[in-house]
Every structure is written in C-alpha cells, then in structure tokens.
C-alpha cells in the first residue's frame, strides 16, 4: 500500500492532474458565467433605458394653441399638453433664434390635458403684419411649431 502510493508516481500525477483540470474547468466556468451575467445585465439595462426614453418621447404630445402679443416685444404661448405624460417647455425659438429672456412658464411641468403659459421677450422686434415661426421644444426634445402673424 505504501509502495503503491509512494512508488507508483504515475498514479499520483493523474489524480493531481484531474483535480487541476477540475479546478481549471470550475474557474473558467465561473469566469465565463460571471462575464455573461454582467454582459446580459448591462445590455438589458441599456436597452431598458433607451426604450424607456424613446417610449416617453412617444407618449409626449403638446401644441401651441394661441399666441399673445403685448404689441411691444413680449409674447406669450399657450401650450396644451394632450399627450399621455407630463411635459415641460425647455426652449423657444422665434424664426430660428433662441429666446434668452423668459418671463414665466419655462421648465414648468404640466400634466396631460393641462395648459401652460410660456411668456418671454422676443429676441428681435416684432412688426405688426409679419409672419413668424415660433417653435417650442420640450425637455425631452419634443417640438411643436406654429406660424403666427403679428
């Protein structure tokens, strides 16, 4: 028995080799599994996030239903949220020029079916009789434009 164990060196190495192989297989399996789990998780999180943003954009609907003009350079947009998600107006462009002076309404979140009034100073002088393109942009990037005659 003793001889078989200590003199049959060929048999010992097989056991060790087997153990080593098992160990290698286990470690490799753990590594591959862990990697695959991480890849799945990150992929699903990314997909979920992207889909969620796109879905919110899909649910968003708003419309400029009337424009008020102070007869100087102040304008007021009445914006209707007729989508299925709340909306907040983030930017307004008049004839492609961004409005920099907002008096009220910017960033205010309103629910579905509600109105929000966005009052601002036109970036240039408004002349009676002229037609202007007014574009409202939401925080999600949704847009609505109207052609308004002063």
């Amino acid at each position, binding site marked *: 028995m003793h001889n*078989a164990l200590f003199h*049959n060196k060929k*048999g010992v190495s*097989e*056991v060790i080799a*087997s*153990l080593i*192989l*098992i160990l290698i*297989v*286990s470690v*490799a*399996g*753990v590594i*591959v*599994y862990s990697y*695959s*789990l991480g890849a*799945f998780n990150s*992929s*699903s999180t990314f*997909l*979920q996030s992207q*889909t969620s943003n*796109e*879905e919110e954009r*899909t*649910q968003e*609907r708003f*419309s400029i*239903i*009337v424009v*008020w*003009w*102070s*007869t100087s350079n102040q304008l*007021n947009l*009445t914006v*209707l949220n*007729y*989508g*299925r998600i709340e909306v907040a107006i983030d930017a307004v462009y008049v004839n492609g020029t961004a409005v920099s002076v907002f008096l009220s309404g910017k960033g205010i979140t309103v629910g579905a*079916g509600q*109105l929000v009034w966005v009052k601002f100073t036109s970036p240039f002088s408004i002349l009676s009789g002229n037609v202007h393109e007014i574009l409202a942009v939401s925080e999600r990037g949704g847009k609505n434009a109207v052609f308004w005659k002063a």
Partner: protein
Amino acid sequence: MRFSGKPRRGKRGVGSIIGATFIALILLSGFTFYTLVLSIIEHYNRTTDTMGELDWNRNREKLNIKDVKITGANKLNVTVENVGSVSSRLLWLGIFNKSMTPEAQGYYSLAEQVEPAETRSIISDFTVVKGNKYVVQLVTDLGNVFENKFYPASEVRCALTLVSVSPTAYQGNNITMFLTVTHNDTEVDTIQNITVGLQATPPGLVSVREQPSSLTIESLGRGQSAFFRWVYNTTGTGVVSFNATYDQAPIGTYFLSTVDILAPPAAGGQSTVTIDGKNCTAPYNPSQWTLLGSTAYISGSVSDLTDNDSNYAIFRSYYTGTNADINDFVDNNSSNVDGFANRGTHSNFTAMQYGPDGIMDTLKEVDTSLGGVEQWVLPTGFDDPGGVWSTETNAYDNDTGTRASCSVPPNSWSNYLVLNHSVIICSKIRYYIGRSQTDLSQVQIDIYNGSWVNVYSGAGTWETYTNVSFTGTSVTQMRFRFYNSHGVQSRTAYVYEGHFLQSLPSPAYVLDLEVQWSGVDLSQTNEWLCIYGGTMASESLLVDAWNGSAWNNVFASLLSGWNNVSVSTYLVASNFTIRFRDANPSGPTQSNWNIDVSLLHLWAAAIDQYTAEVEFVGSSNVQIWTQLVWQISSAWDVGAVNVTIQFYNYALGSYATSGDGYVSYVSTSSANTNELKNQTITSNPTDFKNSTGYWRVRIKGVKATSTQFLLKANWIDFETSYSSTGASVPYKAWQRYTIMATTATGDRIPYAYVSIYANGTSVVFRNATDGTPISNPGWVRLDANGELQLELQSTNGTAEAFVLSAVVGSVLGQKTITQEAP
C-alpha cells in the same frame, strides 16, 4: 488496476458535470435576457400603438361650432356639434377679446363629452360685452382646437337682397318687400346681433301694414341667411325707393329697390276722388324754462303756456337798479409816483385799510439831518503842488508824534501843503505845526470854499493844537505854507496835524408818505376822499392828491374825525395816489399823527329798476320749414314795462337783436292785461331751430321802478309750416289736403258735394281757405275746380293711424294717416 482505474474515470465525469452546469447557467442567463428584451419591446410597441391610435383618433375628431350667441345675461352660448367619428372631450373654452389692444385672452376649463353626431350647448361662466370682437376656441382632450370668430355686425359686410312684389303697383294696393341677409364674409364665422331696417323714400307714399315680428337676429353663421318680410300699402303715387340695411353696417352695405306706384285706373269708366297732402302746420310750445339773472319762479308750469287762456306761468323780477355806494379802501403804501422816496414810517398800514375802528396807523416823521452837532474830522487826502513836502499823510493821521516836513529856502515862502476833504460845513480848523529854528517866522493858512480864503497869517503857534475860526462855509481844502527869514540857510517846517471842524445842521424831521388806490371805479358821479384822523400832532398834517403830473393839496391840516373832500378833479386814472406830508419839513421835533382809515367814497344817484327775464326752450321737428309763425301772449302786474322778445338764431349763434325773431315794446299801462305779440318769418325760418329741432326764446321785462313786479307768461306758440304728403302728421298739427273729384275722362267735377270722414279718435276738420270748421263726418261742396282745401287736426293722446275718406257720389277716395305721438 482497479484501484488506479476507477478514480481516473470518476474525475473525468466531475469535470464534465461542472462544465455542463456552467454552460446551462450561461444559457439560462441568455434566455432570461432574451425574455426581458422581448418584454421591453412588447411594452414599447404597446405604447406606440396607443399613441398611434391617439393620433388616429385625433385626425378623426371633428367638431363644428354651429352657433355662438350672447345670452340675456351676457354670457356666451356656444353650440357645438360633433361631426367626427370619435367622441370628443372638451377640456378648455378660450375667449379672446380682439377689441382690446393688446387682446385679452382667457381660458376656462370644461368637462363636456360630445358623442359623434351629438349637438351640445355650452354656456360660459363668464360674461361678454356685445359689440366687441371675440374669438371663441374649444380645446379637446385629443389636442384639437376649434375656433370661431364672433364679430359684431359693424365688422361684417353681409350680402343684402331686397325684392319688391310687385315692382309696380297701383295706389291703394299692397306691395310686399322681401329682404334676405346672407353672411358671406370669409373671415368672420359668426355675426353678433343684426338688426335690419327698411326705409321708404319718400315716406308719404306708402304705409306699413305688416312687418317682421322681430327685426333682430341674435347671430348669423357663415353661409347662413336671414329672411324678413314687410307689407306696405301704397297711399300715394310716384316712385318709392326702399333702402334696406342693418344697424352699424359698414359703409356701402345696403340694397335699394324701387316701386313705381301708379294712380289706379278708372275702373270701367268711373270717376275718381283723390286726397293729396300739401303742407303741414305744426304748433309747438315750450317744454322747459330757465330763469335768467335773479328772476324767481312763483307759480305755474309749462302746460300753462300751451293755450291763450287765463293760466299763467308767473315769475318775479329782481332789482337791477343802480345804487352803487362804494367805499374803496386804500390798497398799498408802496407807490412812488413823484420819484421821491417816502420819508417817515407807518406803524400799521393795514389799520388804514379798515374802519374806522379805533385801530390806528401812526405816521411818524423821520430825521433827515445828521443830528445837529459839530465834530472834528480828518482830511482824507493831500496835494503837494511843489513836490517839496515829504510824508504828507502824517499831517492828518491824528498822531502828533508824526509829521509832514518841508525844507524852506532862505528868505522864501515854502510851497503849500494842501489837505483835502469832501465838502463839509465848516467854521473852524485846528493845526499842530513845528519848525527846526525860529527863523520860520510866519505861517499862512487858507481854506477853499470855491476859492482860496486866507483864515490865518502870522507868527503862528508852535507845537500845540491851535484853532482858527472863520465864518461857516462849505469847505473842501485847507493849506499851509511857512516863511524862512534866515538870510542864507534853509529851515525845516513841520505839519503834525490839520483838522476840520464839521458843523452838522440841527435835526430836521420830515414826513412824506404816499398811499395808493388801485382799480378805482371811475364810473361813479361822486368821488370823495375820506380820511378818519385820530390823535393829531400840533404840527399840521397835509394831504396832497396826485393828478398824474403834480401834487395838489386837498387837506391843509387833517383833523381828528372825518376829513372829506371831493377828488373828482384828480381822480383821472384807476390808480389814485395821495401823500401825507408835514407842514414843517425840517422841524426840530418829531411829530406823530394817527390815521384810522383812508378811503374813497364813490357813489351815484340811485336809479331803481327791476328786471324779469326767462328763457323758454321747446322742441319741434326737423323738416325744412317754409314758414315760422310765433305768438306770445303775456301780461305784467304793472303797466309800462319795457319788454323784449328774442328768439335764438342758430345760424347767427346768438339771440336776434332786430328783425325776424325780435320784438320790443312797452307793455300797456294797464296792469295784468294780456298782450299778444306775433311774427311771421318766411326768410330762413329754419335758422331758429337747431339740428334736432329745438328752439329758444327769451322774454325780458325791464321797468324803472322801486316796486318788484311779475311776469305772467300766458301762451308761447311756435308754429312751423312745411311741405308734407300728409301720410304722417304731428300731434295737434294742421295738415292740409286737397280733395279732388274727376270724371272718368279726367275732367274736374265742380261744385259736387263730398262726404268726408276720418275714423280717428280726435280728428277735426276746417276749411283751409277761410278757416271755418267742418264737422267730422262732414258734407261739403267742392269749389269750381272740383277741389276742397281741407285741413285736418288729430289730437289723440297716443300715436294713432286712421283713414280719411272722401266720397263723391259712389266714388270713394281714401288716405291712411298716422298721427304721431304728442
């Protein structure tokens, strides 16, 4: 073998199991991920489908704002119909007032569900104003917006169509007018109230038989039409023009249609009886009065002015006599008419402007002298004509320790040292001189009073003040010179000081004070200066009056109490000035005088007079008058009153002062006697009314008397005559008609009897030619021309339409007449 072979086979199986396990786990994870992805995509697709459906429904949603009205409570009534295929949920009602600048916008929340094909009315919570331009907006849950421009009629040019049936009619027949108002404006959606009107010109040829129950429609949508129908009876012959339009229609929005009214043909060769209106004489009376001046109302009313009877509107006169008695108190003490400043003082000038009340203004002299004393004064400068003196100013520095000096040649006089001063009264000088040796043996001193006068020559007094007296005179200089008696040597002379003794006059107290009136009434006959004096000084106080160029004494010595004098001679301008002055202008003692009041008493002989004046105002018509006849009956409770009656001429913009519209007379000497004055105006009679037919007359009575009297207005009649067809007559007006009978061939029927009758409530007839009354009904003979000139008057308390009928034989002529409301 078995020992070593078994383990080898077992270890191989364990590795496979482990590997297979891991592969299974990985596959499971992948499946889970795949499932999750499918779930996310499915959720996203569902959302996309939902929003797509929303967009689809949004496209299918269609609402029609059928009508917009303003309710009696001024709320908005919006009628909306769902003409789409999906339900609509209304979220917001917007209202924009376009009449305001900038426009006013408002949104009001709604919760209305309108199913497909359903029509629903929405009443607003807010109110609106008729006549404003509004835009109404409905906002739905699906994001659609429906607007309606709701403008007043003044903003819309509607299409009008007026059709007459028939365009030609015989007198007495009816014609029907159809008016269509179509809203064909492309900008406005709904028109607010439209009130149509139809006017016939001339109005006397037709009379209304039927008219629409309402001439107003509350709203008219785009493309809609409104229909109206009138029925007229033709009462005269000629061409009638009908003008259809609507209230506040834009300029040029009307429709004209003409109807030719012909005389009815003689039926079967019958005769005809025609009734033609000629002219109308409408009387009017005042509807109100205005009391002028201080005339007072006593009794009566405007209804008492409508008939020439014993009922009066009575007014009491007021005093307008001239009994001026003016006390004009002095106004100021700041004048200076003579160019000399005031001398003296007032203690309290205001006291002189009131009273007499015991409050005095004390006039006090002022001392114009320097006090009556003598004093030594120093020279103020020097002259050194020879230029030989040195330190000359030491000679008048009031210091005997310093001196001016001069070297005097042997056996010679020195040059002069001259000391100067402004002119003073002087009778004495003093000097302080010195010398180097006694060889300076003589001194000469002169003064200058226009020329040099020697006041001292001699050996002199040295090193001490020495006075030199002389007769007082006006002096400006003194001079010194010294004589050196040494035969060969020069000597030095010194002048330490040289002073003048100035003689000041005695005190001289003077009073010269002006006081002045401004804005004096120069129209009065009597003009007296009245001054009330208090305690007077022993020195007399004089008063002078300024006549514009010089003073004139009016009081030589004012006394205590009133001092009165006429100043008419000197009161030549509205500014009147007097001065107070003392009798001794340089008196040595100061005097005071007390003045309580200074005034001008202005008055004229009293003339008693009373005046009564009243303006009466009435309305009439806006016709073009051919004649105006006015009649005024009035009385006065005293005789011989100067009376003026003036009608207001609107063309002149003033009351007539002569000619038409003006009468002036002296009333009868018998009190309380009615006097009728009248005038017929045929030249521009319409000048006596304004654009709305109002007229004015002013009655004024003036009498120089001390007794108040009364104006008793009895009757004020303002009769206007103008051409009229007689279809409409004012209340109480006399309308003239010509009734004419002709045969079937058109020949007149002379002297035929005509039976006339008017079925009005209060209609009377009279013969227009001679004014004789004709009964109603009446039986009258036509004249040689087959005519009757008839005048008709209707006095029903309210407006009334009636028919005037004239029958000759079996031939009937009729005319429908409308009496206007009183």
